[in-house]
């Protein structure tokens, strides 16, 4: 039906995602002019690889925000999962399936712990996750002394490299572990949120928790699922990060929470719950990557990076709030 196509395009044009896409295209065009390095296949693959860690975590956080909660303990969860999994792999031997199974198990269990405190004791999720961030991280540093692991199993250090192809002189590209995990995480999260009843229940719960309860939704079960999902994503992210860095560094992940929050919030997810899309998160992640990469390519000191990220978040959130207010006044006058 072309009519409904036009209607849904009209809706898209008014959406946050549309404006985000325009900003990204504009930014990409100007960066492409300013630096020939920017719009290259090389740079594209590099960006996808290096932002896969933030991207996978952002998808976990998106689901938590839609459900009406928040979690910032995921970097500590990832650090624990990474350290424990790869220590076990070094000690007892492992393969791709077993390392991912262990990391996902640890991540899921720690996420479930958050959910139990939040749901059973009715403690606000921000407080629980601030506490567990410190507990998980504190225990990890205590038991490991903060030591790095540099020797990883050979097969892990080599990684994967699928669908290899040549482009230009002397450069070959392919699907690596990071890009594969990022793509799968996007696909699975999109399916969960848009194609399953459980995903829609998560949206409904975030929009009106009382009404969801009255309709007979299993609120506790949904919350367990949501925080476990975040933990699972943290487990996966931790391994692709270790593979990229070729080491396990217990102290470097904690502190990266705000990049993840930035990507999700730039993507239009609301801290009030019920609002946010996978497409928006993809665009938010892209904007964050383009901004941070552009600053480096333009030769600006990377110390400016947080400033610009903060500035763009503030502008984006203000623009959304302003346009909503405009729409409200206009509809009130009608």
């Amino acid at each position, binding site marked *: 039906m072309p009519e409904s196509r036009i209607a849904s395009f009209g809706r898209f044009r008014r959406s946050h995602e549309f404006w985000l896409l325009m900003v990204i295209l504009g930014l990409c065009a100007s960066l492409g002019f300013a630096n020939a390095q920017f719009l290259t296949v090389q740079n594209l693959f590099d960006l996808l690889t290096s932002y896969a860690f933030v991207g996978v975590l952002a998808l976990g956080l998106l689901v938590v925000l839609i459900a009406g909660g928040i979690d910032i303990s995921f970097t500590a969860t990832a650090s624990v999962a990474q350290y424990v999994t790869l220590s076990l792999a070094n000690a007892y031997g492992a393969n791709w399936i077993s390392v991912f199974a262990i990391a996902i198990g640890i991540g899921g269990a720690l996420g479930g712990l958050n959910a139990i405190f939040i749901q059973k004791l009715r403690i606000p999720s921000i407080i629980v996750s601030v506490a567990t961030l410190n507990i998980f991280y504190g225990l990890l540093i205590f038991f490991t002394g903060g030591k790095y692991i540099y020797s990883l199993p050979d097969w892990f250090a080599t990684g994967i490299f699928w669908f290899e192809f040549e482009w230009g002189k002397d450069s070959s590209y392919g699907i690596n572990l990071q890009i594969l995990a990022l793509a799968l995480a996007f696909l699975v999260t999109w399916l969960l949120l848009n*194609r399953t009843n459980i995903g829609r229940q998560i949206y409904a719960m975030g*929009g*009106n928790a009382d009404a*969801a309860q009255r309709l007979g939704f299993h609120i506790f079960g949904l919350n367990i699922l949501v925080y476990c999902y975040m933990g699972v994503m943290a487990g996966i992210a931790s391994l692709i990060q270790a593979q990229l860095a070729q080491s396990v560094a217990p102290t470097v992940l904690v502190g990266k929470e705000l990049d993840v929050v930035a990507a999700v919030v730039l993507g239009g997810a609301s801290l009030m719950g019920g609002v946010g899309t996978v497409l928006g998160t993809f665009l938010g992640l892209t904007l964050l990557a383009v901004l941070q990469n552009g600053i480096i390519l333009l030769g600006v000191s990377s110390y400016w990076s947080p400033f610009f990220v903060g500035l763009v978040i503030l502008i984006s959130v203000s623009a959304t709030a302003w346009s909503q207010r405009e729409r409200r006044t206009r509809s009130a*006058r009608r």
Partner: protein
Amino acid sequence: MATFLEMSDISKRFGGVHALRGVDFTLEVGEVHCLVGENGSGKSTLIKIISGVEAAEPGGRIAISGKEYPKLNPVYSTHCGIQVIYQDLSLFPNLTVAENIAMAHHLGGLHSVNWASMRATAKTTMARIGVEFDPDAKVSELSIAGRQLIAICRALAADAKLLIMDEPTASLTRHEVNALIALVRELKRAGICVVFVSHRLDEVLEIAERVTVLRDGAKVGTFAADTIDGGKLSHLMTGKSFEYQVQAPELAAGPVVLEVKGLGRQGEYEDVSLQLRAGEVVGLTGLLGSGRTELALSLFGMKPPDRGTILLDGQPIALRTNAEAIDRGIAYVSEDRLTLGLILNQSVTANVTLTVLERLAGAFGLIAAGARQSHVARWVSELGIKVSNPANAVKTLSGGNQQRVVLAKWMATSPRVLILDSPTVGVDISAKDGIYEIIRRLARDGVAVLMISDEIPEVLYHSHRVLVMREGRLTTDVAAAATSEDALRQAVNA
């Protein structure tokens, strides 16, 4: 006619308090039944028992379509076709119209979502009651009346045989209420039983076939609607009788305090001229969107007018902010007292003194605790606010007492002009009477009161003069004694 629901000897205790005592209640198939009673009379408890949320004490009997349910729970109750639309509507504002109506598709174990069938369910259900919304529009984009239609559609999509509506008209304009009443008649023709819980007695009598009255957890009786009137109904609900008379106009002979000439604000109201006299209560009514609230906000400095003049004691004044209005002795009590008028989590003391903090300040601008306490004690006793300790949070008080706290907050500023927007929305009859008494006393003390209300009897019986606004213009300005409910209704809806 067949009986749909039969309940007998239903009791419920919460702790030591009897919420319901031996109540019998029957509903016929396709009947429109109103349930009335003051707050705490047991209406909500009865609804919760019908919907299976609360269990009745042993000894009570519940039969639905002739089948006994010794232990009713929400699942059985929904299965029997019982649907409750709560006052908050329980919709999901972030989701689409289609998803809200067909929400039952999402229940059950993990399965994939069939968007096409949800849209189809939504469309057929909307067609059943003759409404048309874009199934892909977000519910947050709809008006309150639109949302209510979506809530009704959701109940119908869940195959409702009994629809219970809790205060469905509380936030609707008269126009929208008429549409709702027409819709209820439509549902009745389709054999659906409707239970209406409402505070607005004129609506109750307009729509109901039978009315059940509860008082203090006991049933006063069930009456055919054509055998009773508003006065009798409020007597049955409260056990007291209320007689309202049009106030004598000679009471309002004070000098003009506030005068407005040719006031206008782009897109909201135009060419409004009026006078408010000391000691006079002026009622202002009109449909939502008629400009009445915008006019009030202009007089309070929150929506400055584009054109015209405002004169206070004959002197032209400019009101650009509400702080200026408060300084000049103009006070405004907003419609939505719960979100705008009060800080619910804070104490009565904090709320009552909020507007006069500067006046209570002692040395170095610090608040003097003693002055604050005596100030609060004075208003609590003067307005008869029932609170054991003024340090208690406002949210622990009843609706009527909360309203008094808001009034105290503004009366403490010794206003010369007091604007009240829908002062009795969601308040019981006996508490309403208390509020009217306060308004009368304020007027006797020489305050000019402008009372905005949807309810025509309210403006007619409690004002000296009545104003009607329609489509941004002031169309009627008449002494209350010289008009009637019918004439006003015509002026509002014409």
